[in-house]
């Protein structure tokens, strides 16, 4: 009897049911799309943000303060501490290893650049790094990384050097001062490790080393790197006697926006809090995990990058939630209006049921069952339409379709049920208050 009455209600006044169903489908479609994008936007924007560069910088704990003037590090090679290159593969063994999308070690050494023997000598820095290097991971796999991953906005006129050759790129600022261009050869003079500080331009003591490099490109970064010569890390290590070592590591990691919880000092957390913090891809927890696998390393978060990302992500996510709430509210209002009309139209039927001894629970259940059928049909169709919408939105905004999430289906169905229940509260109240006696008298 229950299902007979509920089923029959859909054949009566189908236009109203369709109206409510369409409102639910639209509301749930927008909610599904917004939720899909909101859930996806973190990952997507995090990847997009990574185009703005590394968000973690690793340096030796015992390192001396850098002595930089105009982007040139004047510290002698023998000063400060270094980290072992061999440990870098461990970065891909931490808990959030899949979020480490790239890292680039840097080794800098003061040098004197001479375009040719007759030309002017200019004080600069020779920086060793990786362009696209294969790193062996302890699990036996190989990870490709380098500045192409960590600094994707760096532009090279000409070509990057080959990590296995003795070539270099010259910063655009330095190239402008010296007139260097791709295809030229430069000579760099610098002190060997453990020897006296670098000699002044024009002097050539016997302890000094010379190296000639082929310029493959001119590097534009918009930063201090435009004043340096950049060469393969292995070449700079060999020239400075720092084989297998580096001084600075830039790490690019996908992270979750920072919040109050992530900013707490882990040492003040309970075990459960610490586990939650550790198992979340906060930049601070990833920094800790890197510190754990790189002994003697100090890991600093590049705050302006992390916080900027966090702010944008938070705002976009909030916007998506607002869209969800607005869509749900609109759907709820339509459902509420149609439910109220339904109660008005059926008040004599409801009155009769109550007169015949129908408990309020049974009458409400009949009414709610109709609404829930509507919710599940509307929610299901809305989910399908919403995933399609999310696909298109992802394609339009990020250039990649948003990934459908089946886990959203029960969430959407529950939300649809909540919307119809909320929308039915006032009509249900009217059902509860309905006095059967006047209804039966035709009043």
């Amino acid at each position, binding site marked *: *009897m*229950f299902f*007979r*009455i509920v089923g*029959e209600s859909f*054949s*009566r006044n189908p236009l109203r049911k369709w109206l409510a169903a369409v409102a639910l489908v639209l509301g749930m479609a927008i909610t599904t799309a917004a939720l899909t994008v909101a859930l996806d936007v973190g990952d997507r924007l995090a990847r997009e943000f990574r185009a703005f560069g590394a968000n973690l910088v690793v340096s030796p704990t015992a390192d001396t303060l850098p002595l930089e003037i105009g982007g040139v590090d004047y510290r002698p090679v023998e000063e400060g501490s270094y980290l072992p290159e061999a440990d870098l593969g461990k970065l891909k063994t931490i808990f959030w290893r899949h979020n480490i999308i790239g890292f680039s070690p840097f080794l800098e050494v003061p040098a004197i650049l001479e375009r040719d023997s007759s030309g002017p000598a200019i004080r600069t820095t020779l920086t060793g790094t990786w362009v696209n290097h294969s790193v062996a991971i302890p699990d036996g796999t190989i990870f490709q990384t380098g500045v192409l991953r960590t600094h994707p906005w760096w532009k090279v006129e000409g070509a990057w050097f080959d990590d296995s050759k003795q070539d270099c790129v010259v910063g655009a600022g330095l190239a402008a001062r010296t007139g260097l261009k791709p295809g030229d050869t430069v000579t760099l003079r610098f002190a060997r490790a453990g020897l006296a500080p670098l000699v002044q331009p024009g002097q050539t003591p016997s302890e000094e080393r010379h190296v000639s490099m082929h310029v493959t490109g001119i590097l534009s970064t918009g930063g201090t790197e435009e004043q340096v010569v950049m060469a393969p890390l292995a070449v700079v290590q060999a020239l400075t006697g720092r084989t297998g070592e580096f001084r600075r590591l830039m790490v690019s990691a996908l992270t979750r926006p920072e919040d109050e919880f992530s900013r707490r000092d882990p040492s003040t957390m309970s075990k459960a809090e610490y586990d939650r913090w550790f198992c979340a891809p906060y930049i601070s927890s990833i920094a800790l995990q890197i510190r754990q696998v790189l002994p003697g390393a100090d890991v600093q978060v590049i705050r302006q990058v992390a916080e900027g990302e966090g702010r944008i992500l938070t705002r976009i996510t909030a916007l998506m939630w607002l869209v969800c709430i607005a869509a749900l509210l609109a759907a709820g209002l339509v459902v509420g209006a149609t439910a109220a009309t339904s109660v008005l139209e059926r008040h*004599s*039927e409801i009155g*009769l*049921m*109550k*007169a*015949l*001894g*129908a*408990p*309020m629970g*049974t009458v409400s259940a009949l009414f709610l069952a109709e609404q829930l059928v509507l919710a599940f049909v509307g929610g299901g169709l809305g989910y399908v339409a919403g995933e399609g919408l999310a696909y298109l939105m992802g394609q339009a905004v990020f250039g990649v379709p948003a990934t459908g999430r089946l886990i959203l289906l029960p969430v959407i169905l529950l939300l649809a049920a909540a919307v119809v229940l909320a929308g039915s509260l006032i009509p249900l109240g009217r059902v509860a208050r309905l*006095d*059967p*006696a006047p209804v*039966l*008298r*035709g009043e």
Partner: protein
Amino acid sequence: MGVLVELDRVSKQYGGVRALDQVSFTVEAGEWIAIMGPSGSGKTTLINILGGLDSPSSGRVLVDGRDIGPLSEKDLTRYRAEKVGFVFQQFHLIPYLTAVENVMLAQYFHSMTDEKEARESLARVGLADRAEHLPSQLSGGEQQRVTVARALINHPALILADEPTGNLDEANEELVVNLFRELHGEGHTILLVTHDSGIARLADRRIELAHGRLSQVSVLST
């Protein structure tokens, strides 16, 4: 047989209007009572109070020994399902349910549906062959007989009929009245509101109301 219904100084006040005023009478089990009176005399209010659709402002209403006045809404609902069978002037059938389903509806709210029993109840009122018809496919008399079948289905202690022939033509009125005579003959307790003195004469007693007060009680048959 014993007293089934006892009203003891029952009053009902709607704002400034006193619909019932100190009404007292008793109904024996198996008795047929005709309630008469002009419009606004309190007949329907009396039926509503006896049917648990309304509560008295004062006085006691005992049905089967139980005072239904202080019952909660939930208990009154249960009382209506178990003790009372309603027959309304305007039939009040669910338009999208067939005759047998309308009868089963009362079963559903009482306990559980039994289609066989519902069909027997329809057969009892002469509608065995109309069980699958919708109310719109039935005549007024047939619709009223469906409501009688629905009223009987849960074996109520009390059948309350509010002008059951008010919307019927003469032929159908006779069919329905005969049905009530048969029910009375089977021992059902019936309180029937009517303006028709011919129908009232068939009852055991006639109770007349005027301005909410009991104006006359007449014993009509033995």
